């Protein structure tokens, strides 16, 4: 049985005006366990806290109840007060008699009566409280960044700069991601490569960063501070440490007909290839699907031309196991498939391209070496139609598109239109849009320049159909403002395809026990207040894996994620929330229901030997809660039929005692 002290706060007149605080203190005196009860002007003041501290010492209190403002306000204050007086800080309960009593009820008798009941409930609860000590776990001071795009790069650089080792895992042979494929970037029109490649080089040169390119994460175990990750390094048949990136092999390789994914299949590469000139690591990779040597055992040209002796046809996938303290998901995005958008004739005409393909067509390192030419006949297009929101904001066509706004399309389309008009003033450029959304720094100015200075024809309306006819693309559209049907004979149609999270995100989320939304974007721990953290402790979100965003946003989020990681890694030990679930092994029947509902994957099972009453032993499966992972929601406690699972700080008994006290 506890020795409980009750402290009733006047909060000036905030409480005292509608609650007879002295009556409350007096009434609670006769509650079981209460050995001291008093009231004071401002309990949260230094003097008020001293009253509490003195009472704890004088009356040997084992628990205290503060009747005051909301626990969301001062629970921590009073917990610290208790701790300072040598009382476990979880032996404190707050009765909220301000926000939920004095402020919402008008007359004194009502307020007083309710305050007494709330006080009784808090007394009932605290008399069942047990001292809680937050658990501690060590932190592995190494971070893993999954994805080597600009998000991953920035996160890794920031973490590395703070002095912590970071590993980047990238599925492609090079880091760089989507940004490496871009031509210019809005709204400043910097060349993407010019600002990205120095960062890529920085990554390569940073001693704290290791790059696992052409690799993927296959297994993640453990929890915040202590992840065990298995990384599969796919065989690239070229020894990374020996390859100098001279490119001799990629020139001599007889297999020339491999679609070049970097240029989105608009030109070809060899079976052994370096994705692009500034690739990091600048190492060749053999594509086993096309390499004659690997497929038939006959060829070996690259091996012959490689002076470094880096070619290794016998290479096998390797698995690396590594420990990390934090994991950053930066898996990025892809434009959605245009397969289902037959109305735009994407699959029928090569001259209907996606915006990303258009980037490559504009890029000096692209298939057309920077000259804007139609893919079909390499002629210069004179009329270009841009179609926005292809698959975005598709509330009625969810089966082929996405319900959300892809966010970046308005701006890159303006960029494309502007650049086209800038380079080729003879070209007519039409942009069909639903809305133009430009809420960013210098964004709207940029868009207006496109319209006003560059004479891009912005038409509010949707393109209904694109029909290839001879060399032309017949575009049927509606102009909603003029309320008329338009027919445009275009030479090139550019589709601003919606973006979606990379396909690797879903399996990754499963491995991380991180939650995702229905669109497979990672869910943040809190949409406003914790936007770069996953609800799963130790997992952070960087870039478009969390939601559509442009480069500056991505970079700032990447930095934010990095700072969270740095904050985590700079701790030697993690102190958990002690209000976590706990399973009584004597009652647990191992049914796994609790694990099914745990959002954090905090519950695992083990077989344990029990001594039975008849002196035999029995192996039983029991649930074990990883306290470092559990966030204390209590979902498992209700799923548990036997009541073996309980939540510290909010035990079944405590809540029922509160209910009992309220209903007394």
């Amino acid at each position: 049985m506890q020795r409980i002290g009750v402290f009733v706060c006047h909060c000036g007149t905030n409480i005292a005006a509608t609650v007879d605080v002295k009556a409350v203190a007096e009434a609670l005196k006769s509650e079981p366990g209460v050995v001291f009860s008093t009231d004071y002007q401002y309990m949260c003041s230094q003097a008020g806290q001293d009253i509490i501290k003195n009472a704890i010492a004088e009356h040997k209190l084992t628990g205290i109840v503060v009747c005051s403002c909301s626990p969301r306000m001062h629970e921590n204050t009073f917990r610290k007060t208790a701790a300072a007086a040598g009382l476990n800080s979880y032996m404190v309960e707050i009765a909220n008699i301000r926000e939920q009593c004095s402020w919402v009820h008008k007359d004194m008798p009502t307020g007083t009566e309710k305050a007494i009941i709330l006080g009784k409930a808090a007394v009932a609860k605290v008399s069942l409280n047990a001292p809680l000590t937050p658990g501690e776990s060590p932190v592995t001071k190494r971070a893993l960044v999954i994805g080597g795009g600009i998000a991953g790069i920035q996160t890794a650089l920031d973490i590395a700069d703070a002095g912590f080792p970071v590993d980047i895992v990238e599925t492609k042979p090079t880091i760089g991601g989507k940004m490496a494929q871009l031509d210019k970037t809005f709204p400043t029109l910097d060349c993407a490569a010019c600002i990205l490649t120095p960062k890529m080089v920085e990554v390569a040169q940073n001693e704290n960063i290791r790059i696992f390119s052409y690799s993927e994460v296959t297994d993640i175990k453990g929890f915040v501070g202590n992840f065990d990750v298995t990384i599969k390094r796919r065989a690239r048949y070229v020894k990374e440490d020996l390859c100098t990136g001279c490119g001799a092999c990629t020139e001599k390789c007889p297999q020339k007909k491999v679609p070049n994914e970097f240029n989105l299949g608009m030109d070809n590469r060899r079976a052994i290839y370096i994705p692009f000139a500034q690739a990091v690591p600048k190492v060749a990779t053999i594509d086993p699907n096309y390499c004659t040597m690997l497929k038939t055992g006959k060829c070996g040209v690259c091996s012959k031309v490689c002076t470094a002796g880096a070619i290794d046809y016998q290479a096998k996938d390797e698995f690396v196991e590594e420990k990390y303290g934090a994991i950053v998901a930066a898996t990025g995005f892809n434009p959605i498939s245009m397969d289902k958008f037959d109305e735009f004739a994407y699959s029928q005409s090569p001259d209907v391209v996606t915006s990303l393909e258009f980037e490559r067509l504009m890029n000096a390192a692209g298939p057309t070496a920077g000259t804007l030419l139609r893919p079909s006949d390499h002629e210069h297009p004179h009329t270009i139609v841009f179609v926005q929101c292809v698959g975005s904001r598709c509330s009625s066509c969810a089966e082929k598109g996405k319900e959300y706004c892809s966010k970046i399309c308005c701006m890159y389309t303006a960029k494309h239109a502007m650049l086209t008009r800038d380079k080729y003033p003879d070209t007519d450029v039409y942009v069909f849009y639903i809305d133009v959304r430009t809420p960013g720094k210098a964004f709207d100015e940029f868009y207006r320049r496109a319209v006003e200075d560059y004479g891009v024809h912005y038409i509010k309306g949707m393109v209904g159909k694109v029909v290839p006819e001879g060399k032309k693309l017949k575009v049927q559209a509606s102009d909603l403002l003029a309320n008329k049907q338009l027919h445009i004979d275009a030479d090139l149609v550019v589709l601003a395809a919606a973006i979606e999270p990379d396909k690797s995100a879903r399996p990754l989320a499963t491995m991380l026990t991180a939650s995702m939304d229905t669109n497979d974007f990672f869910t943040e721990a809190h949409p406003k207040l914790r936007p770069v953290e996953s609800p799963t402790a130790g997992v952070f979100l960087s870039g478009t894996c969390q939601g559509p965003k442009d480069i500056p946003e991505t970079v700032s989020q990447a930095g934010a994620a990095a700072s969270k990681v740095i904050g985590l890694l700079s701790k030697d030990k993690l102190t958990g929330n002690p209000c976590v679930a706990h399973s009584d092994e004597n009652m647990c029947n191992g049914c796994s229901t609790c694990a099914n509902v745990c959002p954090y994957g905090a519950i695992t099972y083990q077989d344990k030997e029990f001594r039975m009453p008849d002196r035999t032993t029995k192996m039983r499966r029991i649930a074990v809660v990883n306290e470092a992972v559990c966030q204390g929601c209590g979902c498992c406690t209700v799923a548990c039929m036997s009541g073996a699972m309980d939540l510290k700080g909010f035990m079944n008994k405590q809540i029922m005692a509160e209910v009992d006290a309220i209903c007394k």
Partner: protein
Amino acid sequence: MRKISLDKLDQLFAEISSKSALYIPVDTAAGAKFEKYDGTKKMSDALNTVRSAKDFFFPQTENLVDFKVEGKTIEIKETVKEDEDFVVFGVRACDVKSFEILDRVFLADPVDNFYKNRRDHGIIVSMACTRPAETCFCQTFGIDATAPAGDIECHKTTDAVYLEAKTDKGAKLLKSLNALTEDADASAVEAQKAQTKEVFKKLPLAGLDASAFGDGKTNEFFNAPEWKTLSESCLGCGTCTFVCPTCQCYDIKDFNTGHEVKRFRCWDSCMYSDFTRMAHGNPRLTQVERFRQRFMHKLVYYPTNNEGIFGCVGCGRCMAKCPINMNIVKVMKKLGGNK
């Protein structure tokens, strides 16, 4: 001996119930059950009620005392005694006998006044059996179902109910009913008795013999290996104990209503694992021990403490209601060498 024709039975019930509460067995969807007579209910012809008649004297739960706790002080609020007489009509011989078995527990020193109070106020009108069921084995324990006794003993024939007072209490009640009843000779009753006794001889369990058990046989049976196999199928539920007319184990528990603490007594079952559990262990560890306790109590311990009287009356309720059909007859046959 008095008699009343069947068509006047309702008048008899009306008369009794006008002076005191009257309970008669009535048919319900869930079998026969004693219910308070309200002027409309019809007496069941069922052989026996699903639950025994022990509830009248030893209800499933009863409040013993209330406590009002305030600060360090406790106030005891005692339970008020119910002084009203009540009549239970149609109790079969086995249940009548069960009262004697319960009496030997509850009326032994120190007397249980809750029980005694009800016994003092209860008048038992028994009903002789004419159509025993295959599960009946009261004769094993020397009970004559054709002479059930009680305060008034009744025999129902095709056209009348014969009533005979067996105690002063019964005589008083019967006398008060003289206006409705008429004098009768015992011949019809005797004839029916003889006929019923012949039926009893033919019952499948007629040969069941309890003589192997009884006073002082503890060590003969306690360590019998058969307990393990017999108890194997037992689920550890309390059905047998709760339908049993002689099971009297109880628990005392407190319930905090929020404004006072109610101390109540409720039926308990030795089949339950927590029956004997203590802070530091449980002497009856597995269902084997608990199962053994129940049958040893009925067949050995009770007779040992009560001049050889068995703690079972052969009503057959446990046979009918056990979810897995394990029962005292199977135990007696296995252990007592009955075939």
